[in-house]
């Protein structure tokens, strides 16, 4: 089945879906991010894809899926570039939220399912395989050190951004979709 027509058919089967920002009684209005990458996903030039989703009060507010501008040599590197991309968006969103009287009192957690990426961002150790990615490196490390963001590990199956990377099986797809606050209009 050809790609674009398949999407349109999917859209036709899901015309009634939209995004719902529900009143959360116990919401702390804290921004949370999920960052992920798809290593060497492009079959032609082997570049990876960065993806992120930002959640606030259980509603998805910002999302992106973007091919990386450089070729990565490892999944860790691809994840790292993705986390740096996500961190830039986090810094911007925190500023806008502050204007909206929704100041983030503490750091923003970025969930990431790659342990080595988290370790690299925390430790200022230089590794033979990562020394060439140093600019993005230092940017992310600095934000971690200043406690603007924190990278936190999460299991692959809880990674919301998977909906934007992999072609998923039905159940997994629909489960992730509802955790993105996508649903039919609530009756009432």
């Amino acid at each position, binding site marked *: *089945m*050809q*790609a*674009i*027509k*398949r*999407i*349109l*058919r*999917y*859209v*036709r*089967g*899901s*015309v009634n*879906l*939209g*995004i*719902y*920002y*529900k*009143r959360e009684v116990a*919401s702390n*209005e804290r921004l949370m991010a999920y960052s992920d990458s798809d290593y060497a996903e*492009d*079959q*032609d030039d082997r570049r990876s*894809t960065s*993806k992120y*989703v930002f959640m*606030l*009060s259980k*509603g998805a*507010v*910002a*999302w*992106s*899926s*973007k*091919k990386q501008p450089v070729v990565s040599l490892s999944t860790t590197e691809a994840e790292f570039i993705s986390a740096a991309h996500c961190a830039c968006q986090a810094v*911007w*969103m925190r*500023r*806008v*939220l502050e*204007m*909206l*009287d929704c100041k983030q009192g503490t750091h923003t957690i970025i969930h990431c399912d790659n342990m080595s990426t988290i370790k690299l961002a925390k430790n200022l150790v230089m590794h033979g395989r990562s020394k060439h990615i140093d600019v993005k490196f230092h940017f992310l490390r600095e934000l971690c050190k200043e406690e603007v963001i924190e990278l936190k590990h999460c299991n692959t199956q809880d990674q919301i951004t998977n*909906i*934007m990377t992999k*072609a*998923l*099986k039905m159940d997994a*797809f*629909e489960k992730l979709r509802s955790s*993105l606050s*996508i649903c039919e*209009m*609530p009756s*009432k």
Partner: protein
Amino acid sequence: MEDYVTGAGLSEKEETQNMVFYTAAGDPHTYEEAEKNQKWREAMDNEIAAIERNATWELTVLPNNSRKIGVKWIYKTKLNEKGEVDKYKARLIAKGYAQQHGIDYTEVFAPVARWDTIRMVLVITPQRKWKVYQLDVKNAFLHGELNEDVYVEQPLGYEKKREEHKVLKLKKALYGLKQTPRAWFSRIESYFLKEGFVRCPSEHTLFVKNQEKKILIVCIYVDDLVFTGSDERMFAEFKASMKQEFDMTDLGKMKFFLGVEIVQNDEGIYLSQRKYTLEILERFGLENANSVRNPMVPGMKLMKNEDGEQVDMTRYKQMVGSLMYLSVTRPDIMFVVGLISRYIEKPTNLHAGY
């Protein structure tokens, strides 16, 4: 910039032929057609009245070394949401394509709100039990003030008797000029700053006013204003002052914004693009197609297809563009849309399948 097609060299006839693509069937394409009909004559009278009420121009002799820019009438029958005739609209536009950079215009950039920002504003409202409202500025672009000297010819049918050789010097912007959106944005921006709003440094279309622990938040999208906040009295004051400054339509609670339908109640706020989705399905002839339950075949890999049979590129681009806009409320299709947009250069049957 030289590669840019301006259309400056087009003859009147070619221009009319081009216009035909943009106007709905039945609407007149030229002044000669329109002036035969009472309803279009009235529409043009209204447009000229709105422009003159606004002190947009003054009649003068064209100075040496200056050029005049042509103007043109555009006619459109506006329908309401039920598909009935709402009104007949005649719009006078300047032929902005004939403008020269550095002479007739300099800066043209005007910001619009990002969807990320609009969603951030919306997501916080249910938590605080705020409601979101919407205002629309009528003839917004006519309010912009021009910094450059621009002369336009007198509009067909409204030439001043015995002064036909004169031109109109613009004091305010007209639709169609390159700098018009920017002029409008500067105008509304300075108005907001004067009214005590603070502009968000990281998002220039977001304005916030704080007053005794109360807050009013306004987001500008060209002539659409979305606002919310903690205090009803600040809303009333804001609306009254806007109405005095500009000609406004009060749209009440935010219900329909840039093709997105919005439902608000005490439990939350719901955004969907149902109508837009149905429109694109109909446009591409898929309104009765079989539906599927996920946007991509699991495990499928897409790649360039050098030897494949190339398909209609324009249509492919239109599909990609329509789906991109749908991702405003549908993050579930974001990834696949990003994927298919990579093959816009040379789409083949593998990518398109129509």
